[in-house]
């Protein structure tokens, strides 16, 4: 069964905490990885790789630049 947006966001929150030390309380759809959560370009790769493993999706490098906010990433994973 497909995961809900809330479940995906929760999974992303775990990844962000583990990979980039982001406080789970700060994670919300409108938050920008770079500007709000202080996730730099290399940490973003680590987040993407962890998300690929966790959710079984492919996120190519040329798509990573389009994932500006947590909501962007949740929507991309939701579409699978």
């Amino acid at each position: 069964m497909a995961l809900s947006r809330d479940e995906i966001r929760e999974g992303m929150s775990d990844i962000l905490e583990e990979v980039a030390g982001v406080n789970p309380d700060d994670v919300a759809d409108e938050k920008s990885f770079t500007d709000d959560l202080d996730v730099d370009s290399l940490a973003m790769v680590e987040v993407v790789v962890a998300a690929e493993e966790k959710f079984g999706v492919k996120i190519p490098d040329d798509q990573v630049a389009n994932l500006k906010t947590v909501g962007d990433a949740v929507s991309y994973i939701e579409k699978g």
Partner: protein
Amino acid sequence: MSVNGSRVVSVGHYQPEKILTNDDLAKMVDTNDEWIVSRVGIKERRIAAEGQKVADLAIEAARQALENGGFTAADIDMVIVATVSAKDLCPNTACRVSDALGIGAPAAIDINTACSGFEYALAQADMAIRTGATRRALVIGAECLSAVTDWEDRSSCVLFGDGAGAVVVEGTDDPELAISPVLWGSEPSMSDVIRIEEDVPFIKQAGQTVFRWATTQLAPLIEQVAERAGLKVNELAAFVPHQANLRIIQGIAKRLDFNDDCVVAEDIVYSGNTSAASVPLALSKLVQSGKVASGAPILLFGFGGGLTYAGQVIRCP
């Protein structure tokens, strides 16, 4: 006469005197010490003096390796230089080194596989010695990356440095001391990811793509390098990977089952990324530090432009 294997018997290195700190860089481009340390883990790098070429650095490192092993020029019959930044097309750097050190009539070869060049060169020396074509080889990695760095590009100019490292390799019939069969290969479909090309003669790279490749694809290859040496990763005394970026080194190490005593080289902090020079430079410093016992296994692994990669296990001289 052919022998069953070859081994590294001495090491040496050379770095230019000029230190370029992160504070120095902050005066040149929009950056600062905290940004550089957190992104790439580099505190300072060495920069060649005006007029100092790749060959000049290679000569000094080679001289050190000969002295440290008690060898003279007459003991060497092969010189291989790995470099991606030599600007002179002819003569090659190996001939310049041989002439400067008075090495009479060696097989003299330059090799360019970018950041994995030293491991490719070491493998070629190993094979030449095994066949009997060569008795004792000088294998050098040397770079002046400052000459191919875009000093106005803040994302790349903080990364690179200049330096050289060298080893002397000779035959052995003791399988315990022999260099293991190389694991070497490439990802030619990713040729465009790291470039120094004629029309833009500076190092340009797709940082995120390189980072993803290095941190996700290389750990299984490194396990294979150990396997070819008949070892498990947790039996290694030291791991000397190409010094590309501290976060890449730590990202790779995280995926490998090293034992707690295994020394992971992090010379990048004080030398920056010196491409083909980074592994022999870090290796020479590690050996001279005395942290690794003579005869203990050290895994070398180079990776980078091409994309290319290569690695082998040597025994600490």
